[in-house]
């Protein structure tokens, strides 16, 4: 930033302008400036890099995996890492661990995406309706939220899966059912600060109904704090899903879900350490990446909450 304004050209200058020419221009410019401050955070960029890699691996799993993740080869059971053809070793049925990890990334992304869509939307709906309506609706909805918050999440998820039956979809449902209350609280708090502001009054005077006000005018302003919270929660979601998989309540064999792979390797842990270790490292890497990314996003989108 020099003191004398110099004529700059190209996309960068257009994005960094002080005098946006249209609404889209202003939005893109704000987005680009957030990105610039985000880019300065090395840890967060590292996390983002890992996640981009994960998406890449999941998208091209059939091309990247050296073996079929389901083909058993009992002659090649429990090969240690580094043996010919098995970079990360093979499991008790002679399946290549690397290939299973690669295909497992799809399941991890699937679970995380579904939970990240379902839980915040439910929370957003409950929280904004409670905050905007007020009165007894607010009291009832928030009491329900508190009840769900009062339950230890993993135990509640266990009970739900017990009722619904094991499987990926039910695991997603159980995790979502236990994950929405914090979002409802955040959305409600944001709504309360907006409810009596001038722009909401203005919209109401123009004749907008409560639903339109909530969906069109309140939701968009809740998004940024929710995004931060969701990203920070992703790691917890991955760990919860892996925990359910480990208990045999998530994805069923022979699906290469990482938590289930650890549970499979548990029997051999003392003699064949790699069977359980490799999927654990994968889970750790991905949830670490989400934590780093979440921290960085929080600093950019929500400076007042930032890690001082």
């Amino acid at each position: 930033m020099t003191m004398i304004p110099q004529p700059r050209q190209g996309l960068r200058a257009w994005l960094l302008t002080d005098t946006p020419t249209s609404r889209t221009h202003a939005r893109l410019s704000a987005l680009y400036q957030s990105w610039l401050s985000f880019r300065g955070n090395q840890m967060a960029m590292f996390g983002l890099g890992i996640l981009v890699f994960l998406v890449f691996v999941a998208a091209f799993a059939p091309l990247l995996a050296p073996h079929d993740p389901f083909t058993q080869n009992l002659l090649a059971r429990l090969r240690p890492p580094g043996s010919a053809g098995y970079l990360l070793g093979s499991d008790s049925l002679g399946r290549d661990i690397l290939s299973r990890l690669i295909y497992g990334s799809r399941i991890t992304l699937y679970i995380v995406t579904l939970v990240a869509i379902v839980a915040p939307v439910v929370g957003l709906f409950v929280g904004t309706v409670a905050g905007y309506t007020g009165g007894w609706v607010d009291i009832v909805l928030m009491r329900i939220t508190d009840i769900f918050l009062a339950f230890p999440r993993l135990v509640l998820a266990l009970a739900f899966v017990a009722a619904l039956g094991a499987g990926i979809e039910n695991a997603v449902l159980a995790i979502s059912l236990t994950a929405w209350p914090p979002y409802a609280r955040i959305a409600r708090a944001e709504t309360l600060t907006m409810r009596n502001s001038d722009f909401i009054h203005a919209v109401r005077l123009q004749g907008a109904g409560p639903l339109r006000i909530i969906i069109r005018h309140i939701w968009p302003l809740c998004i940024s704090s929710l995004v931060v919270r969701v990203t920070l929660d992703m790691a917890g979601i991955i760990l919860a899903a892996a925990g359910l998989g480990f208990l045999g309540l998530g994805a069923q064999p022979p699906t290469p879900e990482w938590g289930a792979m650890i549970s499979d390797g548990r029997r051999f842990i003392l003699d064949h350490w790699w069977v359980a270790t490799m999927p654990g490292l994968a889970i750790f890497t991905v949830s670490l990446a989400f934590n780093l990314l979440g921290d960085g996003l929080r600093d950019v989108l929500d400076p007042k909450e930032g890690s001082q």
Partner: protein
Amino acid sequence: MAGIAEIRPKEGRRKSPFRAALEKAAKTIVTVVVTMLGLLFITFFIGRVMPVDPVLSIVGERASKEVYEAAYKALGLDQPLIVQFFLYIRDVVQGNFGISLRTGFPVADDIRRVFPATMELATLGTIFGVLLGVPLGVLAAVKRGTWIDQIARVIALIGYSMPVFWLGLIGLLLFYGILGWVGGPGRLDIFFQDEVPQVTGMILIDSLLDGNLEVFRNALTHIILPASLLGYYSLAYISRMTRSFMLEQLNSEYIITARVKGLSERAVIWQHAFGNIKVQLITVIALSYAGLLEGSVLTEIIFAWPGIGSYITTSLLSADMNAVMGGTVVVGLVFVLLNILAELLYQFFDPRAK
């Protein structure tokens, strides 16, 4: 809450402090009762939508139609749902969670037997977490931005990102399988089993009461690994919270005043700043203790620890719904009580909250 307060008409005269305290107590009790009713409703609901037929699991597949009908009636399943719900609440209030199909004992007795094991683990874990996490957090806040702060951050981040059951397996492999420093799974070696009389159900305390140091030492080698594992998770949380509380204090003006007065850095940090975060810390520690009760579910399975977590999950895998629901209700109750306790402690110690 602010929104609701605005709508209500303001009361003309000030309430007496006694009445205010009474109202607050009543409010807390109502909150607990409503929350517990909600918990019970959820477990009841889960029990109802279960695909497992509770009658079949009692009378067996080959029971005649008459026997089935009789059992159906005896369980109260012919009543309307709302009546069933009230019957369920009555049973729970009386401490009756039904009979466990897996163990054949009343669920309440089973829980009474396994709960101390979880308490022992979670308590020791919290002690580790507090003893290491608080100094680490304070240090990170004081040395903010230095490599010490970075290391503290990385330690906490790893704690937030590591699957607890995996870390347990690796710990078992390393310290038991390879190094042989600690005892393996379970609470005691097999030949020490049942050697000390049960008083509290916590072996560390029971063996000390009995004066049996050999059992104490053996129990210690068994608990040290799972407890430090849980302690690590509690450390991650406590150290982060301590750091942000401390930063808030260290940035305030009274700290500058204290420094200007020429107080030693140690007095500034530990007496002035730390003195002011104690109350917040108590809340955090209570919450982390509640969190460990939950975290112990997966840990207990790895370490074959006969606590409430293993109890719920093994019952779950054998479709023993009475045991699962009973265990869930008890864990939920303890969780709620710990949360309330944290709030009460906060109000008790912090004059501003009154």
